[in-house]
């Protein structure tokens, strides 16, 4: 079981790395909004010019 004397510190280094990454992500605002970015993948990227003033966009039916 002597291997634990190496593995546990190694594990702690990994935890430290994970925490550092989490702190970085928090500071970067990654956790400020957890809901709305999820919707962005459902977006069809259509050119703004084609969308505006178009009363009956095809996507709202086809994507059903």
């Amino acid at each position, binding site marked *: *079981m002597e291997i*634990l*004397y190496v593995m*546990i510190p190694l*594990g*702690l280094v990994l*935890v430290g790395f*994970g*925490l550092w990454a*989490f*702190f970085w992500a*928090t*500071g970067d605002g990654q*956790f*400020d*909004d*957890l*809901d*709305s970015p*999820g*919707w*962005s993948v*459902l*977006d069809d990227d*259509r050119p*703004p010019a084609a*969308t*505006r*003033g*178009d*009363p*009956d*966009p095809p*996507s*709202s*039916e*086809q*994507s*059903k």
Partner: protein
Amino acid sequence: MSAAGGAPCFHCGEPIPRGLDLHARIAGRDEPVCCHGCKAVAEFITGAGLGDYYRYRDTSSTRADEPPRPDRWAAYDRPELVERLTRPEPNGARSITVLLEGLRCAACSWLADKALSLQSGVLDVSVNPATARARLVWDPAKVRLGDLLRVLEHVGLRPHPLAGEHSEQVALLERRSALKRLAVAGFGNMQVMMFAVPLYFGDAQGMDPAMREYMRLVSMLVSIPVALYSGWPFYQGAWHALRARSISMDVPVSIGIVLAFVASVWNALTGQGEVYFDSVTMFVFFLGLGRYVEMIARHRAGSVADALARLAPATARRVKAGIAEDVQAVELAVGDELVVPSGEVLAADGLVIEGEGRVDESMLTGESAAVPKPPGTRVHQGTHNLGAPLRVRVTAVAGDTVLSGIVALLERAQAERPRLARAADRAAAWFLSRILVGAALVFAVWWYVDPARAFSATLAVLVVTCPCALSLATPTALAAATAALARRGILVAHTDAIETLSKATHVLWDKTGTLTRGLVRVEDVRSLGEVDSSRAMTWAAALEQMSEHPIARAFAASARPHAMASEVTVHAGQGLEGSVDGRLLRIGTRRFAKGLRTGGSTGDREPLPAADADSGESWVYLGDATGLLAAFRLTDPLRAEARDCVTRLAALGLPSEIVSGDEASAVARIAARCGIGLHSARLAPADKLGRLKALQADGAVVVAVGDGINDAPLLRGADVAIAMGRGSALAQTSADLILVRDSLEDLPRTIDLARRTQRVIRQNLTWSILYNLAALPLAALGYVPPWLAAIGMSLSSVVVVLNAMRLSRGSAQKRRPEWPVRPQVETA
């Protein structure tokens, strides 16, 4: 397809007034809508290619009431003013933070984001649904801020530009810091648990002492940041409470953490006794999690500063030496002259010097009828001018206005905080007394038996009972209850309110906007002649369009005139006369409307019943030369669920009482319809607070439900405050619970859940303490082998968690299909 089928409004989901046949053209189909505001919003949203919104959203949208008013944002079209309100960004761009009223879910924020991103000149948009704020960056050379605000209003979200970003920034940093502390506690807890398992089994099956020592020291190493960094807010809170000579929940929590941690460190370093690092880290993590969830809810409810931003406009139109200029509201001084156009909100208190406006003061008085303001009368900051433009001489600004007075009252009520202190006191006293008595007994007994072991034994009792009972019993139950309530659309801003709610004895209601919907609406249209009701509605709306009476707003919300009225004359106290489609029409009292039939003037002085339309219901008639054409029933409708809610509350042992600022007759009528016996009318905010204090002095635990600014002090003073989701921001900041769905339906079940939560907490505490009290002496006397203690300990925790989880069972959200089922058939 017809509205008569009872289909709710396509946009806001509210019932459609009977007889109204209004449709929005959505994706090639006619969908029923309840008012022209909703029609405009729904058509704009789908017209802009954003129809997916209706499929993504999971709560219905806010009722739009009136079509958007583009002129409201005129001030934000002026570059020099925008420059002062906004912040500079690189490359000449500007940025501003906007509070979005009506932002309810992720789909709403998607909608706001998309609608703005479609505008040219918008460089960046970030919408945060958790705080209902959007940050806009745009190029002023390409697009005006006013246009962006108009876009937001068009999609049904009411924007409130925030001049300063300070409080928002503070809240953001607070959230991030709490999240980091939570992460440290979570990671730390996982690690320590990993080391705890071999330690438990090592105890049972034998373990190399060096390895055991090593594991304990590593656990200590991991626990140090958890106890110091993650636990810091608790020590701070406890220190503040002790310095103020009071006991908050933080005090026993801190005692528990510190004792368990110090004892474990001592034992780990000296290599004797037990270590409790797993309990300490779990304790910190669960408590931190509860606090974090609570903080998010509180931030969402917003701050007093936000509320003021929503109420008082940031700009005003000042007249100086005959020239009108837009200035920031903060620059106003006493003696300045303002012009308040129709439809705008006053930026300061003042005296009318010119113009004859009608001002909606409902946010101050609760009275929903507009009050006429001839020259010489006082007008107040935050009230809404519905009539002709007013010239106002400023008499009070900033901290001296009536609105600020209410805010000050609010802050004082908050400072007193009767309920929070009492709730925490009770909880703390309950735990502390029992645990300290137990510890003292153990110490006394051991002192008698073996003085050398008295200290460590006492410590063991404190350590094992404190964290186990506190860390799991209460927070898990509260977390489960909070989650269950959130699924029903009830936001819990202060979790200790759940405890207080379970002990509630009385309910105080506000009337307008709480028991009623708070809006005068055309509830019913009845055709009396050969003209059908929708035609009559159009004509009535065309006539009423020319009026500024509050009734006219009811018509404006329900129909958009396809016809224009001409030669409209106002007969004060009777109604309107004018011609629409070449037909001479009258709308008003029955006698007045009938008057055209004989052709003569009636000379009748009967008051227009619609003058108190807000207070109950009244009829308005439309007539022409052939006689009466139609009758319109106007109501500030009682919420459909109000009566049922009051009855169910009474069944739970909570009598209701109405405290209203409105007229006595109106209050009495609503009280009768809800089955409420006790009611008082014409109360100022301070009177409402007085009534509350009188009840509390008799030992009552009072729940207050309200929605308005004038309810805010009442809500602050109440033991549990509940605000309506569509109510004013100030009411929401004062509330413990917010009914996000703006429905009273779930209120009785909430109280039921609060009581069940309290029962579960008590069961959990009893179980934890009994288990510990039973296990500890047995273990100390050597009757329990360590492996059994380890399994028992884990099982004990599992029982507590499972018991708490019962609260979230069986409360799955009833989901209404938002997108009608029909499209699937038709697109096939």
